[in-house]
């Protein structure tokens, strides 16, 4: 592919903010996005922006007592589009952005900061009850249903007496019918654990030797296909989740890029083989996964095991000198994405030619 046929990552709009922004998410079915962060005075802020004629305009600003770390629309219905947020104090809140005075659902879910949040079952994607999962610094991963107050519907916590490790990232997957659902969690000691919510058991765990910054399935609403886990030291691993070997687990391929922490990975909603990683040096890398000729093979004892494919770099661009902490693809327009970095700016990017990749 010549230089002019490769997808180009173009910075469309750049907006400088006056607070530290931790997360940014598109509001489904609209040209609006929210940014979450904290002011220097120690309060949390949610801002709602709309893209109009090549620039962003601030529509609404909501300030709350505790700083926000993460948010998701994943468990909201398309009509209501409630935002679920996790804050520095361990509170999970679900907000109606039109009436933000009191949250629709609120619970003090964790004793320490909620590092990561994910939602499934809303937005017409996937089947089953809408649920939210939160992972916190207190080492626990809890799954919430907004119809059940105060008590999580699933709690993945360390055994009594075990010293805890920070949970840095969570992701839902395998939600292809009403019963099946899986949560993947990544911890700071390099553990990646896969919990099966239907059987309430630990399905698989591994250690990737570096703290896990971000995990994501390529699609939440299909039978688990691929999982990408990114970590410190500039590495990320792509696991083939179709074939589980009883002892060796899932096959994986790993890649080193960015020369610094890979903070986020996000798959393109319109094509599950393409994903973008955001790095600690302010760079974005666009990757494409290619499947191997045969996705599974028999090992020496005749047990099926998976075969990992290969990953190739399509494009990369350096946007900032500070880490890009959060990245979100627009589910409505292919190639449109919003990213936020620790240099207090949020950028809207256009990635071209993704339909020809």
């Amino acid at each position, binding site marked *: 592919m010549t230089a002019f046929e490769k997808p*180009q990552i173009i910075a469309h709009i750049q907006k400088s903010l006056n607070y530290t922004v931790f997360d940014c998410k598109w509001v489904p079915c609209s040209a609006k996005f929210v940014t979450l962060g904290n002011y220097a005075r120690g309060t949390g802020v949610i801002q709602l922006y709309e893209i109009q004629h090549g620039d962003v305009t601030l529509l609404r600003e909501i300030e709350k007592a505790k700083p926000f770390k993460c948010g998701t629309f994943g468990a909201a219905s398309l009509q209501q589009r409630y935002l679920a947020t996790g804050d520095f104090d361990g509170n999970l809140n679900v907000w109606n952005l039109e009436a933000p005075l009191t949250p629709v659902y609120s619970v003090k879910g964790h004793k320490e900061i909620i590092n990561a949040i994910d939602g499934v079952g809303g937005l017409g994607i996937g089947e089953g009850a809408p649920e939210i999962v939160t992972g916190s610094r207190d080492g626990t991963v809890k799954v919430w249903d907004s119809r*059940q107050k105060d008590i999580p519907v699933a*709690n993945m916590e*360390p055994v*009594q007496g075990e010293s805890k490790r920070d949970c840095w990232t969570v992701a839902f997957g395998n939600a292809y019918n009403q019963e099946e659902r899986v949560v993947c969690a990544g911890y700071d000691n390099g553990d990646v654990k896969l919990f099966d*919510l239907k059987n309430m058991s*630990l399905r698989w765990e591994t250690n990737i030797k570096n703290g896990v910054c971000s995990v994501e399935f390529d699609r939440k609403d299909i039978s688990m296909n691929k999982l990408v886990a990114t970590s410190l030291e500039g590495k990320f691993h792509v696991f083939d989740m179709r074939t589980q070997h009883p002892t060796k687990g899932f096959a994986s391929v790993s890649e080193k890029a960015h020369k610094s922490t890979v903070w986020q990975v996000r798959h393109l909603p319109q094509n599950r083989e393409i994903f973008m990683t955001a790095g600690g040096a302010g760079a974005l890398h666009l990757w494409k996964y290619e499947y191997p000729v045969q996705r599974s093979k028999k090992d020496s004892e005749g047990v099926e095991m998976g075969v990992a494919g290969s990953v190739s770099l399509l494009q990369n661009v350096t946007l900032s000198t500070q880490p890009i902490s959060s990245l979100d693809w627009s589910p409505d327009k292919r190639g449109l994405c919003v990213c936020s970095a620790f240099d207090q700016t949020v950028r809207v990017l256009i990635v*071209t030619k993704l339909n020809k990749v």
Partner: protein
Amino acid sequence: MPPLQIKDYSWQQTESAVYLSLPLRGVRPGNADIFCTENYLKVNYPPFLFEAFLYAPIDDINSKAKIGNDAIVFTLFKKEIGMWEALSLASVDKEMMQRIREKSVLQAQAKAKELTEAKAVTKREDERYALKIMMEIEENERKKIEDLKENERQKATKELEAWKEQQKNAAVEEEKIEKELKMCQQKKQIEKEIKKSQDKKTTNHIKSMKSKNFTKGKNAKIIFSEKLKDDYVPAPRSTGNIKIQFTPRVFPTALRESQVAEEEEWLHKQAEARRIMNEDIPELHDLKEEEKNPEWLKDKGNKLFGTENYLAAINAYNLAIRLNNKIPSLYLNRAACHLKLKNLHKTIEDSSKALELLIPHVADNANARMKAHVRRGTAFCQLELYVEGLQDYEAALKIDPSNKVVRKDAEKIRNIIQGTELE
């Protein structure tokens, strides 16, 4: 040997030029050195020398000399048009000759300098020009790429605006459809009611019975299909709990591959230091390496406490305290064990020791201090020293006023004290 002067030269002239021919006399053409200025011409081909102090100035830049055929032929272009009386000036004395020679040399030098300067200037000009062209080319390239990007941006913006318009229209359409649907439903409701009232009037009529069944059937179908349209959301999941264990890691920081070597080294050094310290305690010699680590022993004690093996837990804590008696959590945990075993005096001792060690009262050890107070309070109460117990519970509440369990227990103790006082 002094040079021989050439005197047998021949020359011709026109209005504008002078043609001079010098015999080479067998000297190789390469050896001929010609020096020519405006007024002076010298040809030196050893052993011969020819000098001419020209009658009038000539254009020495354009004049030519051809060497060959055993002769040198000069074509000198006159500066001023006119016939010369002679080739060279007639009356020239030695001094004048010298002066003319010197002037000529200087003239020649000046001309040479001018030439080199001119060359340098043109060279610089050329370089600048080349650079300018290069920059223009690069600029064009960059502009092309920028334009491409700009086009993409514009296209994307337009598409986004168009899509937003579409969304708005779709929303408006949906609203219209919803309104229509509502009206349809209302109409159907009204029809149903009318039919119901009609049916009541004609219950004995068989035909209307049939029609009633028929309409009922139709309505039932509509209700059924509407129910299918409603999305079926399953009930919340039944609460579940999964216990997990982590890959063990001593350090509270995140795991990084590049730091693993350093961390191993640090741990090794710590183990060495401990070994040196404990070499004087003979009983510890037959213990394994890890069993001499107070942290490991504390973990072991915690696990034993979790499985309700309190005596073994106390042993583990004892050994740990022998190795390092400055860790407050060891005393705290041992106090909990003693409390479970009802060794109340030991509980009080250990909690007090823990509180002593937690003397800098900071937010970090608030949790530990609270636990110590609660355990000591419980022990006091079980010894029926309710006042001291209440004091400890109050202290615990001061540290953490939001703890409901402690508050309730404090209330209970207060009631007991008041109860006994009344008696």
